[in-house]
């Protein structure tokens, strides 16, 4: 077969491009560790979360270097997150466990790559690591009803020892600045 030399060049360039796409993703997963939410989360009864770990949502230490936060995303608030912020430690593995009792919601930590879908009856598990104390906003990015535009929350990253001491003293909630008024459409 007689292939024109320009075509040979073009085939070579496109092969390099495809290999480059794959290589960059492998780099992202292996070197940086950036993955997506898997299907490891268990299922829960969306109609009744009271007997699950989401009955009293919030954060706790799973081990010395692992902080787990259970968050319920519901119309139209994050519990915790909206009325009081989610307080997490810096430089620590933080696992968010998310579920919804009503409809599909989004959990996007604004300005970061932490972005997950919250599905009724399913626990979404997203693990991350915040490298310095700061404050992030959280928004719901899946239309969930009439008050969707008001569904927002806050994550406050504090130094690890600060949170550890506060957890021991039971004063973790006081670490965060006031989150402000609950958005409109919340439970009256």
């Amino acid at each position: 077969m007689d292939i024109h030399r320009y075509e040979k060049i073009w085939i070579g360039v496109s092969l390099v491009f495809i290999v480059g796409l794959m290589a960059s993703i492998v780099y992202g997963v292996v070197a940086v560790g950036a993955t997506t939410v898997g299907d490891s989360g268990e299922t829960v009864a969306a109609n009744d979360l009271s007997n699950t770990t989401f009955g009293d949502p919030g954060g706790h230490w799973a081990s010395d270097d692992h902080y787990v936060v259970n968050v319920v995303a519901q119309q139209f608030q994050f519990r915790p997150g909206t009325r009081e912020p989610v307080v997490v430690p810096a430089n620590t593995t933080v696992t968010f466990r998310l579920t919804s009792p009503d409809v599909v919601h989004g959990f996007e930590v604004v300005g970061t790559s932490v972005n997950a879908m919250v599905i009724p009856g399913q626990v979404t598990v997203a693990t991350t690591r915040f490298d310095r104390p700061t404050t992030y906003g959280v928004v719901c990015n899946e239309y969930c009803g009439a008050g969707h535009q008001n569904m927002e929350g806050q994550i406050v990253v504090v130094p690890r020892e600060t949170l550890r001491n506060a957890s021991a003293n039971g004063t973790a909630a006081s670490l965060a600045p006031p989150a402000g008024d609950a958005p409109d459409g919340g439970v009256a």
Partner: protein
Amino acid sequence: MRRGPTRRGFLRAGATTAAALAAGAAGTGVAAGQSADYGGWFTSDSKGGEVKNYDGTTVDKTGQDTVTVEVGAQGNGGTYAYAPPAVRVSPGTEVVFEWTSNTHNIVVEDQPSGANWEGVSEIKNSGYTYSYTFETAGVYKYYCDPHLGLGMKGAVVVGGGSGGGGGSPEWGDWFTSSGKGGEVKNYDGTTVDKTGQSDVTVEVGADGNGGTYAYAPPALKVDPGTTVHFEWTSNTHNIVVEDQPGGANWEGVSEIKNSGYTYSYTFETSGTYLYYCDPHLGLGMKAGIFVTGASGGSGAAAGGGGGLLPDLNWWNAAWIVGPSAVAVPTIAAYVLWDSWRAGDVSLDWLLEGETPPETVEAPQYEPERRIEHDDYDPWGTASLIAVYTAILVVAWILLYFVEFLGRGPHILG
């Protein structure tokens, strides 16, 4: 139409008797023919704000044994409504509350003295039902605790209203499939009670009956002297009066009018008025207005005939003849052409003496200069592809390395 058989029976038995019996059955509470007073319960200056799904209508369900109220129906900006928000029932009526969405309850705000309705304080989810038999006459107000701020409030009025001497509407079989033109599908057995209002609007050509072929509301109850504004919301409808009380001379709108047209008429004579849309009678575009002040049933037995075939007036005839005039010759021509193509029918006698023209091919030219395969350099195309490739590479770098990997923290598992 589902009414208690007993009540329906005596309504048929005789109008005067019916009114008297109904007055007795309804007990006391609210004055005859008068709208219930909710004390501002549905307005914005009350606790929890305005109830947006309340349009000033108290749905009249008097005389029914069982009445259903949806809890968590569409309204108030979501599934935050009781439907209907205001309902009038006879004493002894069982009201069934059906949860159609999640996380609602029923908190009783106010009820007549002597009544002890407790509502449903626990928050329940879709599928839950609860029923309560209201015995004491008066106004019951209730709300949903989680969604009070969105205006999820309701009321049940027990007694009074339609039974109390104003007369009850008796539609006969006007709305059923045995009435002329067939069943009115947008009529759900509810007569919308607009008594006490001086101006009432009826939409002509609202959604219903399989298209925009409905009067909304189909069944209406008003006081004498009420002006009803008919507003055309879609095209080609009219109002033909089928029946009206003796002494009334409502003429309707015989001409066919289009969207935007309005027409008002003040109903003075008490009784039942039945009307329909001539072009869409066969689709069930029918409605009735009951004017209080007299016993129901003056137009009761009307609208019996017909049913299977619409009246063959010029409009119906045009619907049949017009399309047929196009369709029949078209189908005949197609069948003939198909047979001819298959060779079953010879049409040569039509084409006799004519031969199809010869098709002449274009002449082939020799190229002026012949270029061999490897002598040709499409550098223009090549450079365009190079630019596109560069754009793709840059876009991928921006997307993956800058936007995604560059914006930590990431989901790590």
